[in-house]
């Protein structure tokens, strides 16, 4: 599949395209698509903040550094997520496909490219009340694609992929709650 076919497939035939990607694993292409999407989103979001009247607090000349650090963090989150899902997949379902998961997660993020421009347009047209629904729709779209990507990469059921997707976040929330409770018990009067 060519790059254009992959992008078309991610939008209109996500399951079969993600199945293809989980096997062919074009990682370099996936990382380029992911970085381009992340960069585009950061740039449009900066314009969006200006349009909303949030004055930029970045010193002049530091925009490049801000974008570079943003891309590095995005890439680290992507790689970390893929590693965690792969590890959990191997532990729970005895199925591993790290490179396939990474490729699917990266391409699954691509439709998120539509969110900031739509928000920008809505802000300029003074339809600010629609912004939250656009954000939720974009989030759900990307999340669904990433769950389907995990499912196809590990050859598991949708429910199993969903569990794998939410498990790290569930553990994280439980850890935070446990930590707060622990601190509350150690320091009387906080809770």
């Amino acid at each position: 599949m060519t790059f254009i076919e992959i992008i078309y497939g991610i939008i209109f035939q996500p399951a079969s395209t993600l199945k293809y990607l989980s096997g062919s694993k074009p990682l370099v292409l996936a990382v380029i698509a992911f970085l381009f999407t992340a960069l585009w989103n950061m740039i449009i979001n900066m314009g969006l903040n200006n349009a909303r009247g949030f004055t930029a607090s970045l010193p002049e000349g530091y925009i490049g550094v801000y974008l570079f650090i943003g891309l590095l963090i995005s890439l680290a989150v992507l790689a970390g997520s893929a590693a965690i899902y792969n590890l959990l997949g191997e532990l729970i379902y005895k199925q591993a496909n790290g490179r396939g998961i990474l490729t699917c997660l990266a391409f699954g993020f691509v439709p998120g490219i539509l969110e900031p421009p739509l928000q920008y347009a809505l802000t300029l047209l003074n339809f600010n009340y629609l912004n939250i629904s656009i954000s939720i729709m974009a989030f759900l779209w990307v999340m669904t694609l990433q769950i389907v990507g995990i499912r196809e990469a590990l050859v598991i059921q949708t429910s199993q992929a969903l569990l794998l997707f939410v498990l790290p976040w569930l553990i994280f929330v439980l850890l935070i709650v446990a930590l707060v409770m622990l601190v509350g018990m150690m320091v009387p009067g906080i809770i």
Partner: protein
Amino acid sequence: MQKKILIVDDQKGVRRLLEELFKKDDWIVNTAADGREAVSKVSEFQPDIILMDMKMPNINGLEASKQILAVHQDMSIIMMTAYGEMDVIKNALEAGVRKCVTKPFDIMNLKDIVNKLAGE
């Protein structure tokens, strides 16, 4: 002489992936979306190897393999199964399937298996 391979899988993404993989290696590739289509294509296409998925609509991979092997006893069939389907693998090998690979498979590894079987 170019070798022929028939790829049988109900998932379009897998068919596309394997089709591209083997075409790059100069194989003549044909595809089928289920067991019934595979059975009907074998006599005409005369493949050297069949890559057959197990779970498919109409006729599953095992039944299609049995039907093909009943007519073409020497046909080399590789079955693609999900992890943990030990009974399916056992039944497939008993039916005459030459090799079983579990999903998710590594495409380079699969290519090696196919080339090795084609060379025998």
